[in-house]
């Protein structure tokens, strides 16, 4: 009928844009980012220097004890 009428730019269907809570999601995330780092992390970061990183694969060795072997990919 009213073929000269342009379709509305936005349909009331499923939201294509982030809805109003999207800001809350970022708030949740940012609130953690902005927290002071607990001492346990500072301690761990300080301790890293004492831990020898793994050698890249193919360089032999590989028998070094590591605190994080469990679940590590070969």
């Amino acid at each position, binding site marked *: 009928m009213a073929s000269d009428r342009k379709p509305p730019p936005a349909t009331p269907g499923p939201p294509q844009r982030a*809805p109003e809570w999207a800001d809350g*999601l970022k708030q*949740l995330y940012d609130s953690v980012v902005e927290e002071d780092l607990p001492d346990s992390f500072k301690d761990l970061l300080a301790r*890293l220097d004492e831990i020898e*990183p793994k050698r890249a694969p193919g360089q032999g060795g590989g028998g070094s004890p590591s605190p*994080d072997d469990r679940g590590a990919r070969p």
Partner: protein
Amino acid sequence: MSDSDPGDSPRSARDKADFKRELTQVVPHLRAFARGLCGRPDMADDLVQETLLKAWAAQERFEPGTSMRAWTFVILRNAYLTDMRRNRFRGEYDEGVAERILTAPAGQEEPIHLSDLHRALLTLQPERREALLLVGAGGFSYEEAAEICGCAVGTIKSRVGRARAALTEMLANGNIPRRSTEDDAAHRAILEELDEVAAGNLSSTRG
């Protein structure tokens, strides 16, 4: 005396210092991502510590100049999936944190309760939740999120879309489980989903 070839030699002190500086910078982001994934601050922080140790051990595999945040998110995600399978981790959330930051956004008559949002988030299927966290909270592009999750870009888009639709519906209708831990059906569903996700994704992890 020959110059040492940096390609073959162990990491120099400088390499390690550079790596450590970058790693330190992403810790807050790792904590935020982990908190969003598993909800409980203590477990999230354990997960991040595990991630830091793994990242440190694997630092030779990190390519300088690429995104440390994306690289460590992959490690954290894999550690999370592994732990979830092992511990049958319960998707609890921390009400305290959500309430504490329950500040109403300026100019909004009816603020979204962040505790509701957080709770709703934790009821999503894990792969949708992580996709939404990466894109909607972490600010990653679809492409980056796909890289982190080891799946196609279209898959990420679809997961984010479904996650958004589910959250919107839950929040609009007030259809939010009181506590995810008391919602046995949802909990079971989450764990079942997780088994599939973990099985599929762990086997496709880039080595």
